[in-house]
Structure formats: C-alpha cells, structure tokens
C-alpha cells in the first residue's frame, strides 16, 4: 500500500525551504501558489527527476529513486508530451514496453485504458489528429496504464480551455476513485484545486515554502453541483486569502494575475 512521507528540513537553496509534508495513501493533494513558489520543483523531487539539496524524502516507504525504478508513480505534464511518431495506442503502451510486457498483454491493457478515458477507436490515430483535451486524456491513460500507486500531475489542464478543463476535472475524479490511487496535482487555478482535492497545499514564493494547508471537506463523489455548494465557495475564499497573504509580502500585483 501507499505510504507517502516526505520532509525537507531545508530543501533546495532558493527554490524550496523547510518543506514538511505528509501525504496519505488515497489522498488527492493539490500544490498551488504563484510562479516561482517551487511547486513544480517539489513535484519533480517526489518523482526523482531532480534531487533535493538537503532533507529526507520517502515515496511509498522507499527512496524516490527506488520508487522511480519500481514504477511506483506515473507522471503527467502540462503539455501531453505524446510521441508524434507513435500512434495513440503505442503512446499509451510506451511505459508497458519499458516494463517488458509482451505484445498481447500490452494490447489488452491499452484497449482497456483507452476505454477508461473514453477514447476507444482512436488507438490507430496519431497524436496530432486529436484535440488538446483528447491528447491530455491519452497522456493520463499512459500514466495510469501500469497502475501506479501514485500519480504526479504538473498543471495538466493548464493549456486547455475552461469547458474542457472542467469536464476533464470530473473525469479525473472518477478515475481517481476507481483506481484508488494517490494524486499530487500542481495547479495555478484555485477553483480547480478546491474542486479536485482532499487537501490544498498553498505555497509561497522565493524561497518556496508551505504557507498553509487547507483540508477540503466537500462530499464525495463530487459533481457539477459541487461547484454550487456554499462550502465550495468558502474553501475557494480560504485558499485565496492564504494566497493573498503570501503575495502581500513581495508582489501582490503578480498574484492578482495568478488568481484571475
């Protein structure tokens, strides 16, 4: 089972400082903050894509390196990072090739994943033939194809339009419930963070620190109606207040932009 603890008494010299956070299995945690607050850096440290300067971190009770080697997590970036020269099906099957799955096993899993993200029938298309939202669904299918316990998402819906983003938000929550995975989600959007998360971690910039953690007690499963719930607005306000506090020290104007 997932058991995720990570602490940086002193993180990256400038990017992160004194990050102390524990994420429980099955949680959906959003990291939010203005540019330069190190939220993407933190995500990359969890994924062992960069190393912390000091401090200790554990992913699934292992070192991040071991977790990466064991394929404990899947990663989704802001742009879908699909390989143009591969079909949609082969993109989804890419990590399975690395895991040494044989062709038949890959094929059935890829079909299953394409059904999951409602892209059945698009397996033989090439990525450039799909819309931005569909490309992102392929990227999510790829990240989940090997059923990792942890999903790391770096502003995955940042480049999409509002309507696509809201639909994908709901789809992602359904996936999260069904797969019983843990998700760490970096975002710019307060509404997205509140809508999706069980906890929102608000970060402040230069050096990146945790300014506050907001537990979101909105009922599950969340639907389009959740966005009408008064408690939803309370949480949005709570996160916004925290962010405003962060920005007030240094550059409030930049922050106003971030929150727009």
């Amino acid at each position, binding site marked *: 089972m997932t058991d995720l603890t990570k602490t940086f008494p002193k993180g990256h010299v400038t990017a992160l400082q004194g990050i102390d956070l524990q994420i429980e299995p099955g949680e959906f945690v959003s990291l939010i903050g203005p540019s330069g607050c190190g939220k993407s850096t933190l995500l990359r440290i969890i*994924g062992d894509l960069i190393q912390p300067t000091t401090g200790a971190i554990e992913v699934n009770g292992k070192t991040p390196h071991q977790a*990466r080697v064991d*394929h404990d*997590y899947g*990663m989704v970036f802001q742009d879908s*990072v699909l*390989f*143009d020269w591969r079909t949609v099906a082969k993109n989804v099957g890419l990590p399975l090739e690395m895991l040494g799955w044989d062709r038949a096993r890959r094929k059935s899993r890829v079909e299953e994943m394409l059904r999951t993200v409602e892209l059945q029938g698009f397996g033989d298309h090439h990525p450039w033939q799909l819309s931005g939202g569909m490309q992102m669904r392929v990227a999510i299918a790829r990240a989940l194809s090997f059923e990792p316990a942890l999903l790391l998402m770096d502003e995955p819906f940042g480049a999409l339009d509002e309507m696509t983003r809201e639909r994908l938000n709901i789809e992602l929550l359904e996936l999260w419930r069904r797969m019983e995975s843990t998700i760490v989600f970096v975002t710019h959007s307060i509404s997205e963070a509140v809508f999706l998360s069980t906890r929102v971690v608000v970060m402040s910039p230069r050096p990146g620190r945790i300014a506050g953690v907001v537990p979101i007690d909105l009922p599950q499963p969340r639907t389009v109606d959740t966005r009408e719930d008064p408690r939803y607005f309370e949480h949005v306000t709570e996160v916004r207040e925290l962010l405003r506090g962060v920005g007030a020290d240094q550059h409030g104007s930049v922050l106003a932009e971030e929150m727009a």
Partner: protein
Amino acid sequence: MTTFATGARRAVPRVAATLAVLLALWALWELYRWTWIETGWTWPFPVNDTTLPHLHTIFGALGKHTSAGPLLLTVLLKSAWFTAKEAMLGFAGGAIVGFFLAVALVHSRLMQRAFLPYIVASQTIPILAVAPMVVVWLKAGWQSVAVIAAYLTFFPVAINTLRGLQSAEPRAQELMRSYAASPWEVLWKLRVPASLPYVFTALKISATASVVGAIIGELPSSIQDGLGGAILNFNQYYSLDPASLWATNVIAAALGIAFFVAVVIAEKIVVRRAPVPVA
C-alpha cells in the same frame, strides 16, 4: 510542398505545374540563345551551336548511334547504372558511418569536443585531393570510388543526426526518466525517432553528394565504365560534338534526382509525423 497529397485530383495540377516549369525553362533557354545570336552579344560568352546547343539537339543526341554502334542513351544508361552502384554503396556506407558516429558522439560532450573539429576539417579538404590518395590506398576500382562517395556522404549525416538526437524535448526526456528507461531505451524509443526528420534532411543532401562523389571518384581511378569516364571522354570531343557532353550531364542530373526521390519516398514511408513540410 504539401506532404499529404492524396488521390489523382491533386496529382493533376502537380503534373501540370511540373510540365509548365519545364516548358518555361525550355523557352528561356531558346530565347537566350536566339537573343544572343541575333544581337551578336558576346558577354559573358559568344553563343553558338557549340557553346549552347539547342535543347532538342541535346535530347536528340541521346537517340543517335555512337561510333561504336549502340544508341548514346543506351551507353549513358549503362554508365549511369555503373556509377549508381558505386554511389549507392558509398551512400549507404557513409550514411551508416555518419549515423553511428553521431550516436557515439551524442553521449559525450567530451567526445564531441575532441572529434568534431576533425570531422569538420575532413570536409574542408577538397575531394579532388583526397580521391587520388584513396585510389593509391585501395587500388583503382569501384571500391575506392564508393569510399570517395561515402566520404562526401557521412558528414551531413553525422552533423544532422547529432543535432536530431539532441532535439528531443526536455519534458520527453523527463518522461522517459520517470519510467526509469535505460539509456538504450531512451536512444531507440526517443532520441532516434526524434532525430529522423533531421536524418532525412541530411540524407537528401547526401544522396546528390554521393552521385557527385562517385563521378569525381572515377576520374583518378581511370574508371571508364561510369559517368565520370563518359564525361572525360566527351569532354575531349566537345568542339566536334558538344551535344554528347550536354546529354551526359542530363543523365547525371537525372541520376542525382533519382537518388533524391528515393530518399523522399523512404522518408514518407518511415517518418510518421504531423504534416509539416520538412524539405
């Protein structure tokens, strides 16, 4: 140029455009001839049947019998086939050497620093200076000609492949790292596929260069059977029979175009990319 031209409906205007260009070039050639002859202009050179034969004379020469018997076209096609074999071997050899050189270099900045100056230097030495040495080393023969063709081929392939192997975007490399992919997997599943558009651009340059390399390589090897031999031969009789040399050039150009087209076709089969014109 659109890469996804499909169906006869789009082929028709294409063929028409090609024909129109050919017609226009032919008209320009003949107009130039006519103007210079009529006015008696001598700059940059006096125009007459020797310096600038009629195009129909040049193409007509292909249909005439040579002193030995067979048609000039038959003779030249035989020579072209001989040169094509040398060029193909050289092209394949040079492309393979260039590609794997790039694969070796991409993994080490130190190696790049150490080797790149010599790779560049190799191309500043004129092929005319290298060819005789290759002939001395390998004995005159089609093998040495292929080596000379390879010498011209490997350079653009090495440089462009190196650039292409480095072209994979950082996020894609992070993605592969997140899968704990081995360097071998990163190379074959990411770097090499990402490099293919660059590789094919280089192959297009090299395709024609290898033909030129083969023709030039035949000269110091004293090989008579190829286009190089034909050019040398017809060069001696130019004042008597200019059309034959021109006709040989036409065939040599056609061979270069055939090589180029072969690479373009291979690219269409191999590279499955968003329809962006690369050539």
